[in-house]
């Protein structure tokens, strides 16, 4: 299991290739990449504040819970923090399991957690100024599906 926070942009394709390399027992790898939206010019940058030393530990607890719940062989989570420009990858999740259903579901589950409860504080910068953003009602509905 790997959980990594980074302030640098990363290459999801290279991360996925490395995650898949050498697997002979995992029949399935599912992955998701979240990308910063420009919203037609309304968002000029996204700023994610993390608490290094706490944020990745809390995410690691969820990754461990997902590993147990979905019988995963492995999990990779890469998450940006700091300033993120539209078009850049914010987050990547990859899950490996024996069969595809568990890998798909675990990836979905981890993304719902990361979008609603993970220890980040999100600020959107646009032409009209900056504002702190809380989870949307849809994000909260998404995470409630798994309770």
């Amino acid at each position, binding site marked *: 299991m790997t959980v990594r926070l980074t302030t640098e942009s990363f290459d999801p394709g290279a991360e996925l290739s490395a995650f898949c390399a050498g697997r002979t027992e995992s029949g399935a790898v599912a992955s998701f990449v*979240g990308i910063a939206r420009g919203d037609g010019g309304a968002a000029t940058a996204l700023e*994610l*504040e993390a*608490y290094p*030393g*706490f944020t990745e*530990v809390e995410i690691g607890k969820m990754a461990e819970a997902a590993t147990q719940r979905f019988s995963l062989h492995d999990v990779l989570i890469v*998450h*940006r923090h700091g300033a993120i420009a539209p078009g850049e990858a*914010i*987050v990547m999740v990859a899950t490996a399991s024996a069969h595809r259903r568990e890998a798909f579901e675990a990836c979905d589950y981890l993304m719902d*957690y*990361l*979008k*609603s*409860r*993970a*220890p*980040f*504080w*999100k*600020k959107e910068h646009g032409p009209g100024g900056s504002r*702190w*953003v*809380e*989870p949307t009602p849809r*994000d909260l509905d998404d995470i409630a599906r798994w309770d």
Partner: protein
Amino acid sequence: MRVLLFGRLGDLAGWRERAFDPPPGTLAALKALIAAADPALGEALGGRGVQATVDRVLVRGEAALAAGAEVAFLPPMSGG
């Protein structure tokens, strides 16, 4: 000891990290010290959904603070 503020709490206070020497011995004493200097921040620290960590572990209620402790106040988490 060090105190860290995250999200809107840092904007409200105008600082995100500050040393407190000598350290208050408890979390309640630290909050009282902060509230005396900045009542708006003091009120925000007691606001709904604001959590505290001591040495990067969430604490509920009162906690003793060692001289080298790192305390953080976390507004509701937004996810990424």
